[in-house]
């Protein structure tokens, strides 16, 4: 083993050498030097606090420091050998340098190294050490001579003191040790001195080298640098002087450690000094350590003696601290046996066992008792189980298997459940770390903040799309659409609640709670407002007299003339509000002037009465139309808003106010719609211009909902009077062109918008119209428009069909009418017949060309494109309506003119010249639509 530079074989070698008496005295030269007790001794050891060490063993365990084995052995050895000039530490033949390099370690680490070299052999009978040291009494009892640890190593001394009265006292030992140390120290001192001298020589050499270098440098460097160097040199020399002084001091003090090798590592003299100081410190520490170790050893020996004595007493007295640990023995005999065992064991432990195996064997024998009980219990339970199973033997083997499987399954299940439950519990526990971090008031506070962000002046409009979507959803879900999902707080504002949840779980609760929260907040806010109102500054304002309002003479000149009227009309449309400021200025003037005339023109009776005072204007530009439309949309939204916020009927005042407001907004809308603008003002009429844009067409149904019957009639009259001015009529020829041109799709889009928007909005008026009104409208249409052109368009056909159908309904109601006043007068009927005949007459040459399929380019080339049945369908429908009103001669005309068309369809359907069954069906359905009106059917047509 090579431990801290010690060679393993050293001890053995030593032994051999010793046995042969060849131990050289020169070896002792290398030993450490202890300088305590010298003249240079600083006396720090005396200043040490010596007391309070009695309990060190209890605190640090009884192992104690181990550094003194060799001193001890050396002492005893030297004692027995009578102070031969022999090494106190025989293993140590290492050079001193290694010692100096780790002075503290050398003291501490030696014992383990020594103990490793099988101390047993030292104490062995054959060992010369043991022979010399202990005498025959010791070797005779192998059990008492066990040495395992450094602490027990000291045991023989105590023991020996008891058993061997002739042992030396501690003072004697110490004296011996000191003597030995003295000797070794002297040797080392000599060595040190040699080394120091050598070192000094080295230093001088180094200095010379430096000087040489400096001289060389001086030749090369500038004077200033030289000066600096000289300064440095001076400093260096100064430092060197100091160093020398220190060295001399050290020599005087007989420091035993050699100075470090002064290699020119650093030019800084401070570094050298530092190193030297460090060494000094180390030396001092070493000395102190030595002293301390000696003291400790002394104390340890005393302590051990005390312990031994106490143990012996305790053993003999039979009092055990650990006695109650094993209450296993039930009988008294057992107890006694156990006690005996324990005693044995304890003794063993205390003395330290020679062989660990033996010790553990004892140990096991003792401690096995407890597991035995557990084993017994387990066995008992197993027995019970087997007995239970034996009882089950009555059942068949298969049943048992089934039962076992079942049981296993159940066990697994429960285990799984348990696992699940545990995981859940762990999760909950994990989350519950945050339980009750927030108090209820904290939560309320946060809810308040959140809710305050939601409160708006106009909850419906701010949440418009969600509200509308919610309404649709509710109607689809079959819920009552009456309740708006809006929390309202009087006039102050509210919160949109969004779409109701389908599942009735936690959400509604949260909703209710929020509702309550909000209500509380709002009521609190209102109360505060009221209190403020009562005690506000306003009530006290001016109580102490008035201050002069203006301190400046004149207001600064106004540079910007901002229109103060352009305030937003809607709270939610602030960014666009200014658009809603209408252009009534431009239209207002003429509107007043022409209002009288419009009254006359209202029903279109005097449509030709273009008086001289008519102000002709250019038609509205597209931009004007768009601006008007935006304004109209704002107004319509406002109207819808007002409708929703309708005051309760009980509150008469509020109702009156609401009605006034509603009426004023409606009037604005009516004016803006420009229906009352004289017919001949422009072409197209401003109202028609508004309808020329898709969103204008879409707006109409939303707007007409709020108009009264009279206004609606006026609107309808105007529309019919100017029907040919409509873009859908004018641009209708585009639809006859092949598809997929931008114009075509645009017109198609507009047509769709017109049919779904405008026609839908006038439908209720026509559906309720009297025969007189219908014939008047038809007359107006025929008079002011090119009815042939109109009839060639889908909107025109739709209108005509609408009128004819209404009259048909009226005719039918004639037969079962009960109220005589509802019946149309004969004059009205006559008027109608006149109008119808006129219409028929006008359309007669164009019947075949009413069909879009006949108007296409392909049709001109003499062949009809397939897939035109859907566009033809309204035409067939119109012709059917026409046929219903027609008299026999008119029927013949119709059949004659449409014969080809009907046959075309029927033949192609019956001969299978169709793409699919659907088309065939469509063709036949179209033809039948018309033929049925004549009292015929497609099946009657024979091929």
């Amino acid at each position, binding site marked *: 083993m090579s431990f801290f530079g010690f060679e393993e074989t050293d001890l053995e070698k030593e032994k051999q050498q010793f046995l042969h008496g060849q131990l050289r005295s020169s070896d002792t030269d290398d030993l450490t030097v202890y300088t305590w007790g010298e003249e240079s001794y600083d006396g720090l050891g005396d200043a040490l606090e010596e007391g309070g060490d009695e309990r060190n063993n209890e605190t640090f365990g009884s192992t104690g420091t181990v550094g003194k084995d060799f001193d001890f052995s050396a002492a005893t050895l030297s004692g027995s050998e009578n102070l031969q000039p022999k090494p106190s530490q025989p293993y140590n033949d290492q050079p001193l340098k290694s010692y100096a390099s780790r002075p503290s370690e050398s003291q501490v680490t030696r014992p383990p190294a020594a103990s490793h070299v099988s101390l047993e052999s030292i104490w062995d009978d054959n060992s010369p050490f043991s022979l010399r040291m202990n005498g025959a009494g010791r070797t005779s009892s192998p059990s008492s001579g066990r040495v395992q640890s450094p602490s027990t190593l000291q045991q023989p001394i105590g023991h020996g003191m008891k058993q061997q009265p002739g042992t030396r006292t501690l003072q004697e030992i110490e004296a011996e040790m000191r003597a030995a140390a003295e000797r070794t120290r002297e040797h080392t001192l000599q060595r040190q001195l040699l080394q120091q001298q050598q070192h000094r020589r080295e230093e001088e050499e180094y200095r010379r080298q430096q000087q040489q270098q400096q001289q060389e440098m001086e030749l090369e460097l500038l004077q200033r640098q030289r000066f600096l160097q000289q300064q440095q040199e001076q400093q260096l020399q100064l430092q060197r002087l100091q160093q020398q002084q220190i060295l001399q001091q050290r020599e005087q003090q007989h420091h035993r450690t050699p100075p470090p090798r002064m290699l020119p590592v650093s030019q800084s003299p401070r570094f050298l000094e530092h190193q030297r100081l460090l060494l000094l410190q180390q030396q001092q520490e070493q000395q102190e350590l030595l002293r301390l170790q000696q003291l400790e050893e002394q104390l340890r020996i005393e302590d051990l003696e005390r312990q031994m004595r106490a143990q012996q007493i305790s053993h003999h007295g039979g009092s055990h601290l650990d006695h109650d640990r094993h209450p296993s023995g039930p009988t008294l005999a057992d107890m006694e046996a156990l006690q005996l065992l324990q005693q044995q064991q304890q003794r063993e432990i205390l003395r330290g066992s020679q062989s660990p195996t033996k010790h553990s064997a004892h140990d096991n024998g003792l401690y096995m008792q407890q597991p035995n009980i557990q084993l017994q219990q387990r066995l008992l339970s197993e027995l019970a189980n087997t007995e239970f199973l034996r009882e089950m033997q009555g059942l068949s083997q298969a049943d048992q298997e089934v039962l076992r499987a079942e049981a296993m399954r159940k066990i697994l299940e429960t285990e799984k459940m348990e696992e699940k439950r545990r995981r859940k519990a762990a999760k909950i526990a994990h989350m519950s770390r945050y339980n009750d971090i927030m108090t209820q008031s904290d939560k309320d506070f946060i809810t308040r903040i959140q809710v305050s962000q939601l409160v708006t002046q106009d909850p419906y409009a701010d949440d418009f799309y969600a509200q509308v979507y919610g309404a649709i959803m509710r109607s689809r879900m079959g819920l009552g659409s009456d309740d708006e999902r809006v929390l309202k707080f009087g006039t102050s504002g509210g919160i949109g609640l969004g779409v109701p949840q389908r599942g009735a779980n936690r959400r509604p609760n949260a909703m209710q709670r929020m509702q309550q929260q909000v209500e509380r907040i709002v009521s609190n806010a209102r109360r505060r407002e009221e209190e403020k109102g009562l005690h506000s500054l306003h009530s006290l304002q001016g109580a102490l007299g008035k201050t002069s309002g203006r301190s400046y003479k004149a207001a600064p000149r106004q540079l910007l003339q901002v*229109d103060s009227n*352009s305030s937003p009309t809607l709270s939610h449309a602030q*960014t*666009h509000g*200014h*658009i*809603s*400021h*209408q*252009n009534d*200025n*431009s239209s207002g003037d003429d509107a007043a002037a022409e209002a009288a005339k419009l009254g006359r023109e209202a029903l279109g009776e005097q449509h030709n009465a273009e008086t001289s005072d008519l102000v002709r204007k250019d038609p509205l*530009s*597209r*931009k*004007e139309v*768009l*601006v008007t*439309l*935006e*304004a109209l949309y704002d107004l319509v939204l406002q109207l819808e808003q007002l409708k929703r916020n309708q005051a309760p009927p009980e509150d008469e005042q509020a109702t009156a106010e609401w009605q006034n407001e509603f009426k004023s907004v409606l009037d604005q809308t009516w004016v803006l719609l420009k229906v009352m603008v004289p017919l001949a003002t422009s072409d197209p009429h401003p109202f028609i211009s508004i309808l020329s*844009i*898709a*969103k204008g067409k*879409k707006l109409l149904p939303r707007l007409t909902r709020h108009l009264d019957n009279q206004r609606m009639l006026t609107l309808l009259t105007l529309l019919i009077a100017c029907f040919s001015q409509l873009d859908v009529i004018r641009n209708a020829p585009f639809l006859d062109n092949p598809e997929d041109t931008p114009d075509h*799709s*645009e017109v198609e889009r507009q047509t769709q918008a017109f049919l779904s928007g405008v026609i839908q909005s006038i439908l209720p008026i026509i559906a309720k119209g009297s025969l007189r009104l219908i014939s008047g409208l038809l007359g107006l249409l025929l008079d002011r428009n090119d009815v042939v052109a109109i009839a060639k368009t889908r909107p025109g056909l739709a209108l005509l069909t609408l009128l004819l159908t209404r009259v048909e309904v009226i005719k039918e109601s004639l037969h079962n009418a009960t109220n005589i006043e509802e019946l149309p007068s004969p004059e009205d009927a006559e008027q109608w017949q006149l109008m119808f005949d006129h219409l028929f007459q006008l359309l007669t040459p164009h019947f075949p060309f009413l069909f879009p399929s006949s108007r296409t380019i392909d049709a001109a080339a003499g062949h009809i494109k397939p897939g035109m049945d859907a566009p033809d369908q309204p035409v067939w429908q119109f012709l059917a309506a026409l046929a219903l009103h027609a008299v026999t001669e008119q029927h013949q005309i119709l059949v004659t003119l449409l014969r080809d068309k009907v046959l075309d369809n029927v033949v192609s359907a019956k001969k299978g010249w169709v793409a699919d069954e659907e088309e065939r069906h469509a063709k036949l359905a179209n033809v039948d639509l018309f033929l049925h009106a004549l009292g015929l059917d497609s099946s009657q047509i024979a091929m």
Partner: protein
Amino acid sequence: MDPSSSGIQEPFDLIRLSLSERVFVKLRGDREMTGILHAYDGHMNLIMSDVEETITIVDTESPEGSNVSVAKRKMDMLFVRGDGVILVSPPSRS
């Protein structure tokens, strides 16, 4: 009609007029499109329907000088991010 009475006070008002109307939009990266404008915001993000996009591709790598080709595509509904919008106008009327 003067601007004050027409209520046009800021550029966005002009775009507002074109709501639900067909507009022409010029975009960065040589892209143009026409479609019906449904919504816009302050960033000029646009929602458009029935859109036809025209992409002009100039191929400078081709052997016979620069070669301009046009790609078109149609979309039913489109969200246009505002940072790409250069110009929004009513479609030119022929």
